[in-house]
């Protein structure tokens, strides 16, 4: 095990995959000379040269579409979005072309592209740079979506995503970039669609993804210490494919569920999870399913309020204590 940052884990994954497969090419704004806007690709230009690590102009529809076109011919581009919020100017390329070209061609064309970058709030940058579009992406059959919550998953899911023959959107989190976790050495991969129990518990299930899973874990520790409530924390890791089995299993075990996510509440990922639980584990529920999401407004700039807007430990604990 190496104790490394989420950023380093991503960098390791990208470097190992560029080295492993000559078709892998890293493209994005400031990924090469600048060493990455968030330094995820630091040192890669020097190590691999400009053919493999490519600086794109600020032109998301153009370069993402270009990557999709190249992937149809078997190149495996890993495209960096400086923020997932910027995907909105490339919507047609990502949500029409990448998502549907295989289907519309009756399975004749693949699109083995990875689109990655941070998708989070909490950084005091206002509404245009704080979107969490994992629910949007997961609503498009043809796309796969993962949200790693820690360094080990960041590395393992990224490597799996690059080797996948379908378009995979990897949604990272800038607040996690500097945090350290133990990451297995060597060719560490994590399968898509396999959730992870971060903490075992018996009283209720906190089901979360992305940084919200870390928030849920912190809340669980506090619940145990201060309220003697033993919460299980399930990290979804992957939104599509979704580990339905793990969700149902934890609910059947604890009989109570609180869903935590940074998505806005209306039509968020947890609306779907909630539906799944009521349909397939209705008889196991001892209480209504509760949710903690971002407060339903465009992301606020004011840092003090933004820290309340996105799920935090206090809000999770408060919600859990509301469980009957």
């Amino acid at each position, binding site marked *: 095990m190496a104790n490394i940052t989420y950023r380093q884990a991503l960098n390791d994954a990208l470097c190992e995959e560029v080295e492993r497969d000559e078709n892998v090419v890293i493209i994005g704004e400031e990924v090469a000379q600048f060493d990455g806007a968030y330094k995820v690709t630091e040192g890669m230009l020097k190590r691999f040269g400009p053919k493999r690590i490519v600086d*794109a*102009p600020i032109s998301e529809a153009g370069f993402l*579409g270009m990557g999709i076109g190249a992937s149809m011919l078997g190149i495996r581009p890993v495209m960096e979005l400086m923020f997932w919020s910027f995907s909105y100017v490339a919507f047609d390329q990502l949500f029409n072309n990448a998502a549907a070209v295989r*289907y*519309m061609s009756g399975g004749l064309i693949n699109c083995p592209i990875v689109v990655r970058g941070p998708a989070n709030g909490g950084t005091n940058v206002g509404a245009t740079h704080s979107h969490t579009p994992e629910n949007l992406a997961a609503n498009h059959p043809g796309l*796969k979506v993962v949200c790693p919550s820690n360094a080990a998953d960041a590395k393992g899911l990224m490597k799996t995503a690059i080797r996948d023959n379908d378009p995979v959107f990897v949604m990272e989190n800038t607040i996690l970039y500097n945090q350290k976790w133990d990451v297995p050495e060597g060719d560490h991969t994590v399968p898509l669609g396999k959730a992870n129990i971060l903490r075992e518990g018996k009283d209720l299930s906190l089901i979360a993804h992305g940084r919200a899973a870390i928030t849920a874990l912190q809340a669980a520790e506090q619940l145990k210490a201060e309220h003697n409530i033993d919460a299980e924390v399930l990290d979804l890791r992957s939104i599509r*494919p979704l580990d339905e089995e793990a969700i149902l299993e934890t609910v059947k075990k604890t009989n109570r569920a609180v869903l935590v996510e940074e998505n806005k509440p209306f039509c968020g990922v947890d609306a779907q999870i909630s539906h799944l639980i009521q349909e397939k584990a209705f008889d196991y529920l001892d209480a209504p399913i509760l949710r903690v999401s971002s407060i339903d407004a465009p992301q606020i700039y004011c840092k003090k309020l933004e820290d309340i807007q996105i799920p935090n430990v206090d809000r999770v604990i408060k919600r859990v204590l509301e469980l009957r």
Partner: protein
Amino acid sequence: MPDADHTDAKVNKDLTPEQKIQLYRDMVRIRRFEERSVRVYQQGKIGGFLHLYIGQEAVAVGTVSLMGEHDHIITAYRDHGHALAVGMGMNECMAELQGKHTGCSKGKGGSMHFFAPDKNYWGGHGIVGGQTPLGAGIAYALKYRDLKGCCLCFMGDGAVNQGAFHEALNLAQLWQLPVVYIIENNGYSMGTSQSRSSAYDDYLAKRAEGYNMAWDVVNGNDVYSVRAVTAEAMKRAHEKSEPTLLEIITYRYRGHSMSDPDKTYRDKQEIQEYKEQKDPITLFQNTLLKEGVITEEQISSIDKDARKEAEDAATFADKSPFPPVESITEDIYWEEDNRTEETNSKGTIIFE
């Protein structure tokens, strides 16, 4: 420029009589296919949109006839002409129009989404201008692999006002991608004429100058001219890995799609004049007769064969089954369609 005479261009001089006749045959086949599809549409067997290529045949046939092993093609939604030009069969195309299982996309794509990657044909794209970054990407892949080829990326004149088009032009020139962007300018973006939709001076292709990109304009009613000018652009792509923006002036006889009554934005007389004086098939037929390459008997037999081929395709489509219901959730993910014991992904990916 559109009034230049390209009869003596090397790519045309080098054509054998058989090759010239093949160009003619391909144009006639496209027209007869499109005419037959109109009847199928009128019988209510084609739903949705049907954008016809009638009048523009010399563009697809002329350009595609220049493609070699590593040359690729991608276009917008008026895609039947290019499909037949690259060698797709009338049967699979007509069946796709009817949403049949035997269609080129198994009935999942429809009129606007024909694909044949085995023939280097990457579609068939429904959103105006949306295919232009993809065309840059195909060229990027060729360059990445050191292949001497290029991508012919087609669009209509309406696409030049989309942002994606301009982003693609910038990338193509910036990264020296071997792509030939081809504006098939039929004068109208749906029902809006060029002068009502685009700010321009002389030619739309002149916009390339803003990107320091080579450009040219050619008369799309003359297949020799189309070939000559496109060959120059392809040479630039092959030998110097540089892009070109070509504007090919053409005309569509039918409305934007079958749902366009074609009564509000242009005169009947304008269409009539084109048919009588500038029809690409009639013009090429006269050229070949004058050159002594083709006989009246051959002309009528080519026409008869094309009509029969289109008729047979309609019958084939009629007799073909619709796709089974379970196919709705197939061909979404490569991994699901190719699942083995080693497949890495777990979990649910198709939801109820």
